[in-house]
């Protein structure tokens, strides 16, 4: 039987599928291409591109490997493999109770016991990427706005907006006060959103901040909480770097603030956490939404069906994170190693004539190259970024990809490589800056 077949160019996909909101055309991703095509290797390719754009934590793997060596049953359902069947069939979106308990306990330890976490409020998701998107689906409708302080993690543009249809309105922060969020900036962002006829549903902060590598101060947290309460909107605190604070007393979680206020009006607060940064396990896809709002917990749990954590992985980590001796030691040593790395890079940059924002957390530093721009604009910034990528062969993240309102700032990661590689990177940068200064001096003499 003949069929009438029309031959257009193709059957349409959804608007979402063809939109650019996945964000993969930004320079943030172009740097990766340069790295992929010519990756540095100590022996095989010592002049290759060094990847300093990836916020991974590779400094404490030996601790994890040592744990696995001494606790082989954690990853294998025991000698008789007796727990396998039950584990393999477990797809309950509540998640393994033992794992939720272990996560809650780990989150408490990371905060030095200054806040308590209830396992019943822990909702599991396949990574913080999923957690952030899920919360956005729950807290906002398409067309609504979330306020986010700049500079922010470039991935938010995709994670929070792409499939949800929600908009991001920036809360502009400036170097004049170390990029801290001010009440004026909050009000200004809110008014801006309202003037564009967008309904503001919440504020999302990252604490410790990516890309600043600094914790949010108590006073600022209190101000933000007061602001969201006044406006009757939500507050999402992405605390995925909470275990990467160099000195534990310097991190104040929103959980502590809420406890100090006796959980008054806390239903508007939600915390996102993950093991990708603190434990260096991004491949295992372990994220969580912790909400003080019962309806959000229930809804998030149901929605997590779309993004469950493998029960195999839940079991392994439940065992590991329930081991208090291991977790306490890990948190302490990991912190110390990150602090040392941070000092190395900041000192090295200083010797090269480059200043950084004073940081106290995270896997990166926020470097200031604004004095060296040919022009104090985004294109001036991208120009120097391109030069650093092509001549110095370092992939770093330009502030514009983080929506920074000032040109010339760059995020430089330090924990995703060996100490030797970091030294090589610093040496290259040093030489580059030396050359540039000499060229400038020559020009000024002419």
């Amino acid at each position: 039987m003949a069929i009438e077949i029309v031959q257009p160019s193709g059957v349409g996909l959804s608007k979402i599928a063809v939109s650019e909101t996945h964000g993969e055309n930004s320079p943030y991703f172009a740097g990766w291409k340069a790295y992929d095509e010519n990756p540095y290797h100590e022996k095989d390719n010592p002049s290759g591109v060094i990847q300093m754009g990836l916020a991974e934590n590779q400094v404490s793997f030996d601790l994890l490997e040592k744990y696995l060596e001494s606790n082989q049953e954690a990853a294998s359902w025991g000698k008789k493999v007796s727990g396998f069947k039950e584990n393999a069939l477990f797809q309950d979106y509540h998640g393994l109770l033992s794992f939720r308990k272990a996560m809650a306990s780990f989150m408490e330890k990371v905060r030095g016991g200054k806040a308590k976490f209830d396992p019943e409020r822990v909702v599991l998701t396949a990574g913080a990427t999923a957690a952030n998107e899920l919360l956005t689906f729950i807290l906002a409708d398409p067309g609504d706005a979330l306020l986010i302080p700049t500079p922010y993690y470039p991935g938010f543009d995709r994670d929070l907006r792409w499939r949800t249809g929600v908009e991001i309105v920036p809360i502009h922060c400036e170097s004049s006060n170390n990029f801290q969020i001010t009440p004026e900036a909050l009000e200004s962002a809110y008014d801006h959103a309202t003037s564009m006829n967008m309904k503001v549903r919440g504020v999302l902060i990252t604490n410790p901040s990516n890309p600043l590598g600094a914790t949010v101060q108590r006073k600022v947290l209190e101000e933000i909480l007061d602001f969201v309460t006044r406006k009757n909107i939500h507050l999402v605190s992405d605390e995925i770097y909470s275990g990467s604070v160099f000195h534990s007393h310097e991190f104040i979680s929103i959980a502590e603030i809420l406890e100090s206020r006796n959980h008054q009006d806390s239903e508007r607060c939600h915390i996102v956490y993950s093991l990708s940064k603190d434990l260096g396990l991004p491949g295992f896809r372990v994220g969580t939404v912790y909400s003080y709002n019962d309806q959000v917990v229930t809804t998030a749990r149901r929605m997590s069906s779309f993004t469950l954590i493998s029960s195999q992985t839940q079991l392994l980590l439940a065992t590991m994170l329930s081991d208090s001796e291991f977790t306490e030691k890990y948190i302490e040593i990991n912190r110390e190693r990150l602090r040392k790395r941070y000092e190395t890079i900041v000192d090295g940059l200083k010797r090269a004539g480059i200043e950084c924002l004073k940081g106290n957390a995270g896997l990166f530093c926020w470097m200031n190259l604004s004095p060296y721009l040919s022009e104090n604009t985004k294109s001036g910034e991208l120009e120097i970024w391109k030069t650093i990528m092509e001549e110095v062969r370092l992939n770093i993240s330009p502030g514009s990809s983080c929506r920074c309102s000032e040109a010339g700032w760059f995020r430089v990661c330090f924990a995703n490589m060996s100490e030797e590689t970091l030294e090589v990177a610093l040496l290259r940068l040093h030489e580059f800056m030396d050359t540039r200064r000499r060229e400038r001096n020559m020009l000024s003499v002419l």
Partner: protein
Amino acid sequence: MLSKKASVDSHGEESSYFMGLQEYEKNPYDPVHNPSGIIQLGLAENQLSMELLESWLEKNSDVTGFKEDGGSIFKELALFQDYHGLPTFKKELAEFMEEIRGKRVRMDPNKVVLTAGSTSANETLMFCLADAGDVFLIPTPYYPGYDRDLKWRTGVEIVPIQCTSSNYFRITKFALEEAYKQAQKQNLNVKGILITNPSNPLGTTMSKEEIDIVINFCMTKLIHIVSDEIFSATVFSSPKFVSILEALPERNLQDSIAMNLVHVVYSLSKDLGLSGFRVGMIYSNNKMVISAATKMSSFGLISSQTQHLISNILGDKKFMKYYMKENARRLKKRHEMLVSKLKRIGIRCLRSNAGLFCWVNMRHLLSCDTFEAEFELWNKILCNIKLNISPGSSCHCSEPGWFRICFANVSEEMLQVSMQRMKVFVETVIGDQIRHRNMQISFSRKPLVTKWAFGLSSFDHQLDR
């Protein structure tokens, strides 16, 4: 305070399908500790072949220990979050899918997108193929979870393609046209059809003719076809499974627009019983779909630890060949057990050759031919004889009286106990019907035929044994 999506019931958890599961949680059967508890016959899990996997694991402990070629690969795996997935894993998945299709199709690992379970795969495809407010047509009866998976966050609508028992619930051109017209009447834009092959809840594979009807329809209307083939390796008797991916080259459509319209969903939750591990995937020849879906998979990646383990299991071809054969044999045996026991108490099933369940005809047990009566019957079975089975209405069946009964998630003993309870129940219901009829006869001069007698003798001789 929360979004519309959070406040509405579109998560679908008020349906009887989910309610039954909840009741079970409160009072689960245990042969020793709770012999009068609820037996769970509403969960389509495959528990029949787990110990085959267990013995494989015992012999291959290096794999779970993150060891390979004498060294540790833990760090490498822990850091691996590339949404393209572990190459060896995709290669093994593609080859496994080829095996399931009797090597009649070549499957390219580069056309595989990994997702955390088929729940995620189905939702992701909706996000890629349809805008909020668009429609996907789905043949009834269908898996209750689709109401949540396809519609909740995407805003996509489902319009049913009504299938009826008169032709064993097969899809007809007429039903397709009617569904399409129905969508148009509501001013809705149809973007595609979603078929489940083998079918849940029917347990049947689609015939070539049926697949052709669907392909022809979609090519004329220029709409997508999503073929959910997650039960493809549960086929235990003839006819053999025909994937939509085979139908295209067979009709010489491999260079046509049809190639860009077809997308397959797969998962290891049913065939391998690994529902907790969240291993799902999308397979498509459409480059744009692959590109968009791959990026979207960031929201639901498979744990690299699990990718590594499964890659090794699937890579053991000798084991997998044995597993598939043995798994099919066990499913067949269990299926026959359920069907024969039901037959002995006068209950017929739709003839089926796949899946983890039977589609059971209990229309003769209804007090009348309505969905209220079906709900009443379901409730009685749940509360009086403590069996949780899925009523056809939860699967959007167009005719009341059909139920899905699972057989692969319980032990043989539990199935025996269930059937014993069913026997007693059916005898009571029939007894009540006879008494009722006798009372009616004594007040009337016309002899009446009971629904019971009707139900057994009508077209059922064409249905299953």
